[in-house]
């Protein structure tokens, strides 16, 4: 008998993405079958989850993620999300999801104006999402950030709404970028689209200083395994 195949997860590659292969490698190590999907594809292949990776899609022109949201493949991603498909946006992928309106709020230049590149401590506010199920509630994670525009912003009304709905899934212990409410990761109301600025795919091996990223990506792989692929 052949071993059970892992869930197929699309990793979208935009011009300027640079963490796509790291994300794919990490997912593969966690038992998934990643498949890289070029931004110009008009549809998504049959997959159980989609990852929008980090990088500088379209050179971050105009605003980070503003141009990538119009990539042909994004129609497929939007449709996939609307059907309840699992979508994870990491760093630039988070920015794209916000610009596309799949996640609330937006990301602004860091308050310090400096690019931050270091490990940060994240507090897991909710462990009952498909992206955090491997974490115990209240656990902290050590995962690196590397961004110039990771300052999460939502106006007072929106922030209160997100807070009340439990959509602020991850917060920084020591806010590295001026994010409002120290928000590091946000989920949509349906609980199937999640974005975060830190890079779990860079914290999956003891050699990299932390394996806490496997708790996020492993949660996604577990959740994807439980779902049948969605044809788009």
């Amino acid at each position, binding site marked *: 008998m052949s071993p059970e195949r892992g869930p197929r997860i699309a990793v979208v590659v935009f011009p300027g993405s640079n963490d796509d292969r790291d994300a794919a490698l990490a997912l593969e190590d966690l038992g998934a079958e990643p498949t890289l999907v070029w931004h110009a594809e008009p549809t998504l292949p049959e997959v159980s989850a989609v990852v929008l990776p980090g990088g500088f899609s379209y050179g971050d022109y105009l605003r980070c993620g*503003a141009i990538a949201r119009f990539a042909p493949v994004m129609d497929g991603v939007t449709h996939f999300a609307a059907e309840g498909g699992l979508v994870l946006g990491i760093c630039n992928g988070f920015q794209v999801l916000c610009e596309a309106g799949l996640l609330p709020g937006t990301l*602004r230049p*860091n308050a310090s104006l400096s690019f931050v590149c270091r490990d940060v401590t994240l507090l897991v506010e909710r462990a009952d999402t498909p992206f955090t199920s491997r974490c115990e509630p209240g656990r902290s994670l050590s995962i690196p950030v590397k961004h110039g525009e990771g300052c999460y*912003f939502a106006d007072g009304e929106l922030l209160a709404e997100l807070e009340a709905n439990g959509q602020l899934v991850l917060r920084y212990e020591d806010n590295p970028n001026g994010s409002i409410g120290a928000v590091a990761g946000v989920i949509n109301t349906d609980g199937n689209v999640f974005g975060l600025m830190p890079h779990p795919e860079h914290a999956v091996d003891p050699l990299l200083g932390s394996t806490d990223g496997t708790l996020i990506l492993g949660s996604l792989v577990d959740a994807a395994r439980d779902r049948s692929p969605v044809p788009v």
Partner: protein
Amino acid sequence: MRATVLVRPKPGILDPQGEAVESSLRQLGFAVEEARIGKVVDLELGDGDPEQAKADLERMCVQLLANPLIESYEITVTQ
């Protein structure tokens, strides 16, 4: 027809670029109380219907040029 779109950070939105420029201008000895930095987009629109062009410009701003959550925009049409 030509048009210029000015995109500005909304009041109250943190503008670290503006703050950096404001502090540099002060260091140069200028009496600057606040600097805010936005974007200018110059557009060449050809010779279409001006009313249609105005409606299109509005949609361009909402759909792409500005993020309404954090930015305001101002459209000026020049001949």
